[in-house]
């Protein structure tokens, strides 16, 4: 089973490396959205630092949602998904492999880039560290929850917009506690509780989301 899991992961990473432009587009989107905010609300350092955590988190939410379309759709079109569903191993495990690969190429780069954007918006020191850590815990949850939505909207007309309608409300807890962690530190409080809850969401979604996404794929291929 782990051989198959490793191959799913490896194949998706190879595909991402060979089709680099798609990965970079998500990243560029993230940077551009964050950069638009100072232009929209004005360059005052105080204002920017106040909204920074929310801005970075909302941009991460949107970027991760945009990249979700890629998760299953190309496999759906070329028939690789049929072979995945008919594989001799439990589908949730293989789907988890795909989600991890997806996070590595679309979520992790956002986390790595976030300190630069945080600095731009006037965050520093501890707040910056908490921002990175909250994204590190939160973005995998986005990929996991998003996979369920991506599975459900597979091959539907207007799938992209529909996906955002389904998935964004479910992202709210991650947004609240992710941005809340940074806010708490800025207000001089501990971010411990927020980060623990984000961790709990991560554990919960790792346990449930692959199973739900696998069912969604079976339904969509039926």
């Amino acid at each position, binding site marked *: 089973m782990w*051989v*198959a899991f*490793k*191959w*799913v992961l*490896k*194949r998706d990473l*190879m*595909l991402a490396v*060979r*089709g680099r432009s798609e990965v970079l587009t998500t990243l560029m989107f993230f940077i551009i959205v964050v950069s638009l905010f100072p232009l929209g609300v004005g360059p005052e350092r105080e204002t920017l630092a106040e909204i920074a955590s929310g801005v970075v988190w909302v941009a991460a939410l949107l970027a991760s949602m945009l990249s979700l379309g890629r998760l299953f759709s*190309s496999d759906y*079109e*070329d*028939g*690789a998904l*049929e*072979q*995945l*569903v*008919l*594989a*001799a*191993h*439990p589908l949730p495990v*293989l789907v988890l492999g795909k989600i991890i690969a997806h996070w590595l190429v679309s979520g992790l780069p956002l986390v790595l880039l976030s300190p630069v954007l945080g600095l731009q918006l006037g965050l520093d020191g501890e707040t910056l560290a908490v921002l990175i850590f909250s994204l590190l815990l939160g973005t995998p949850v986005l990929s996991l929850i998003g996979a369920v939505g991506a599975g459900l909207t597979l091959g539907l007309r207007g799938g992209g917009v529909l996906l955002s309608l389904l998935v964004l409300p479910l992202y709210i807890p991650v947004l609240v506690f992710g941005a809340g962690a940074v806010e708490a530190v800025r207000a001089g409080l501990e971010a411990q509780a927020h980060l623990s809850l984000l961790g709990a969401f991560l554990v919960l979604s790792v346990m449930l989301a692959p199973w739900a996404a696998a069912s969604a794929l079976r339904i969509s*291929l*039926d």
Partner: protein
Amino acid sequence: MNDLTCFRGDRRLFAGLDFTVETGQVLHVSGPNGAGKTTLLRILCGLTQPESGEVRWRGQSIGELKEEYAREVLYLGHLNGLKVELTPVENLMAWAALHGFELGEEAILDALAAMALKGIDDLPVKVLSQGQKRRVALARLLLGRQPLWILDEPFVALDRHAVGVLEGAIEAHLDGGGLVVLTTHQAFTLATGHLCELALGG
């Protein structure tokens, strides 16, 4: 021992279908376009749930066997299931891992050579022609170890040589005690094996 029974009552396409496939047998599903051939094959391999009825493999329902059944089935649909950015060898290795066995590069190269694909095994699949892609997909038949083959239009886009190779592969599979269910609109000849017809629709 290998028998497969299917009851299905689907008002849209077909109803009350009931048949068995035995070892060494080819079931040729025929019928006009839209008669439900592909749907039937997808039900047989477990992709689609029948409206009513069930498919049984060695007497057990495939809904209960789940992965155990999937291990025994080789399905080739209309779509090739190849990632176009990867080479044929990478594609086939990933496919084998998914279906529960490991393949050496040697075996894969041999199979590709038999499909007359020698020398293009390190190119990404996207530069290959339609027929070449289909042949890469069909190379699975030479590599797979599953007893039940479910093939949807396997002869489409193949040249005469490849059709011959495919027929040979099916014959060898039947001689080894395998089962084949296929759809095709093209004529094909088999030297061995017991061919039965299932006509749908019309």
